[in-house]
């Protein structure tokens, strides 16, 4: 029984890590622009595909060993995915922002961008799934009847590392201060001489780069890629970000793990048929008690 609980905690930590990594991207953009970037789940999917192409390219055109390929794939994938995120901002969101469109329209645009990414991928690459190559040799560690792999440990560590990096950037650096300032008052910030567009682009770079990292780690852990892989996990991560208190880095991080734990533990103790029913009822109760999420602050309307 104890072993099975420990095993489930490890499972939940790994699964929650993915929710956390994606939820962090939602929360970053929301925190700055008050925009729910619904395309984020699909940026994650694009990240996984970019990782796939970079890794297969490096494997076939260089003599690098698997870990070397991985070491090169991580930064390349993050940079390329960041470019995708920034292009989305330039092509889809910025023109609307310039015209002073209501936030609702930008959210709908984001939803459509997600669909464009999914179906663009489907049209370009076809519906057939891609099998991600095994870059590092998988090692299974067994302690009694509890098992974990080196990959699971890497995923969990990456999620924590990402959280600390983002938390540091947002709370301790100058650009982080600018990001917080924009979310506080979008109109006063340019008057203070802060280049608002640069800060927004930086936000998208951060969010998308870590979506790329999440995509790469996901592809390593679940090595089957398809164009719709980002949709469901993206929505669930958004829910995680809201439950954690959207706009807050700690909230997204904890919200992701909370959702991971709830989903896995519900299966462990109830019939798995009721997993989503029970899991999301629990989240609903949390939101009923604290509508702004765990770390959210009630917004005051300014007159």
């Amino acid at each position, binding site marked *: 029984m104890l072993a099975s609980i420990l095993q489930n905690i490890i499972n939940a930590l790994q699964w929650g890590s993915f929710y956390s990594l994606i939820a962090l991207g939602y929360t970053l953009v929301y925190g700055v622009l008050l925009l729910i970037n619904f395309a984020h789940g699909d940026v994650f999917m694009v990240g996984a595909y970019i990782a796939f192409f970079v890794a297969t390219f490096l494997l076939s055109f260089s003599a690098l060993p698997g870990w070397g390929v991985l070491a090169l794939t991580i930064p390349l994938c993050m940079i390329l995915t960041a470019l995708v995120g920034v292009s989305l901002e330039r092509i889809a969101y910025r023109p609307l922002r310039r015209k002073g469109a209501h936030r609702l329209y930008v959210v709908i645009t984001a939803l459509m961008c997600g669909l464009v990414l999914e179906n663009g991928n489907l049209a370009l690459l076809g519906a057939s799934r891609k099998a991600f190559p095994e870059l590092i040799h998988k090692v299974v560690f067994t302690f009694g009847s509890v098992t974990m792999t080196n990959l699971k440990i890497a995923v969990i560590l990456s999620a924590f590392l990402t959280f600390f990096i983002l938390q540091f950037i947002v709370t301790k650096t100058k650009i982080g201060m600018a990001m917080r300032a924009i979310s506080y008052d979008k109109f006063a910030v340019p008057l203070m001489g802060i280049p608002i567009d640069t800060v927004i682009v930086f936000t998208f770079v951060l969010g998308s780069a870590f979506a790329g990292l999440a995509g790469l780690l996901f592809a390593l852990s679940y090595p089957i890629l398809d164009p719709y892989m980002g949709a*469901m996990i993206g929505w669930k991560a958004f829910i995680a970000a809201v439950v954690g208190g959207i706009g807050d880095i700690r909230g997204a991080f904890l919200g992701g793990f909370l959702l991971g734990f709830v989903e896995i533990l519900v299966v462990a103790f109830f019939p*798995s048929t009721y997993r989503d029913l029970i899991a999301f009822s629990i989240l609903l109760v949390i939101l009923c008690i604290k509508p702004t999420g765990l770390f959210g602050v009630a917004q005051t309307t300014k007159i």
Partner: protein
Amino acid sequence: MRKWFLVSMLVLVSSALFLAACSKKDASAPKEITIGFNIPLTGDIPKVGEESKFAGEMLKNEINEAGGLEVGGQKYKLNFVYADNESKAESAVSVALKLIEKDQVLAIVGPNSSKQAVPAGQACDDNHTPMISPWSTNPDTTLDRPWVFRAAFLDPFQGPVAADFAMEQFGAKTAAVLYALANDYSKGLAEIFKGDFEKKNGAESVVAFESYGDKDQDFSAQLTKIIAAKPDFIFLPNNYNEVALTIKQAHDLGWAGPFMGADAWGNSELMTLCGDDCKGQYFSTHYAAAGATGATKEFIDKYKSLYGYQPADVAALTWDATRIVLKAIQDMGSLSDNLADNRKGIRDALANIAEFPGITGNMKFDAQGDPIKCAVVVKINDQGEFEFTKSVCP
């Protein structure tokens, strides 16, 4: 006045010309037989759709090159319309309606999965259009639907085949099942298997009966529960893409025992996605490509030379299903101009086929329109081929 006269003359002449052109086209153009294919070209199982399409194309070209299908002394060219149901239940219904209304097809081949075949069967039955599913094994697809037929055996037959084989091969006394909740095929087969296995090994011999949702990729919680229950083997009646993920994750969690699968495993993409993890596992299916003989071998060789890979069961079943429809059309003797009459004629002819020698085995049809045929159990060998192990006949 003169102007009006001219205009009306012009209209008359042009419409007469138009009518003449139309009727001329009707008389001279070779008559066509249009059959619709309701298949998953994108979505969860695109390879299934691709193989169905290729099998259809191969059959169409073969017959059209020979001049067309002969019905009552007249040759008809075949026209196959391939429509994508995105592997979704709701799209399968709209695709069926599109084929029935817009493309005016005589009959529909597909959908393949029970998930789509069950709802699409209702649409075809309501609209009095004959439908034959190549691959669907869930009883509900054809149950009380006089217009719906199939070419595959049924899950109430397949479930016991899997249970018997596992008891014999692994000496299994206990089993665990992991199935996809949103998939009619998976859920139906899982329940049939559980009922049969518990009947033979006593209540509670299925020690874990777990499910997952649509688009799930992480099964670690369910597998942890299954492994903790210590079954003799795990039964996975799921689509090949989910099977690949499940088996890898089970191995990561320390599972070293055997898996047993069902016919949805039998796809040429399974080994690309699953790799070494799937080798040595068994599943029940419609035919074994390795070591086939006769017409089956001819089909496999031709398919391989045209498309470059070994066709899976779904290609062979589509081939059989389409040929059953064509045989029914030939049995009608002649085609009339009335679409509804033709559809009715095909349905009656389909219902009258007593026996059909298919490349997936000899089929006899019962009153529900379901074939009675043999199943085979194959082993995935070290080369990743599906090797014939055992044949089970009803």
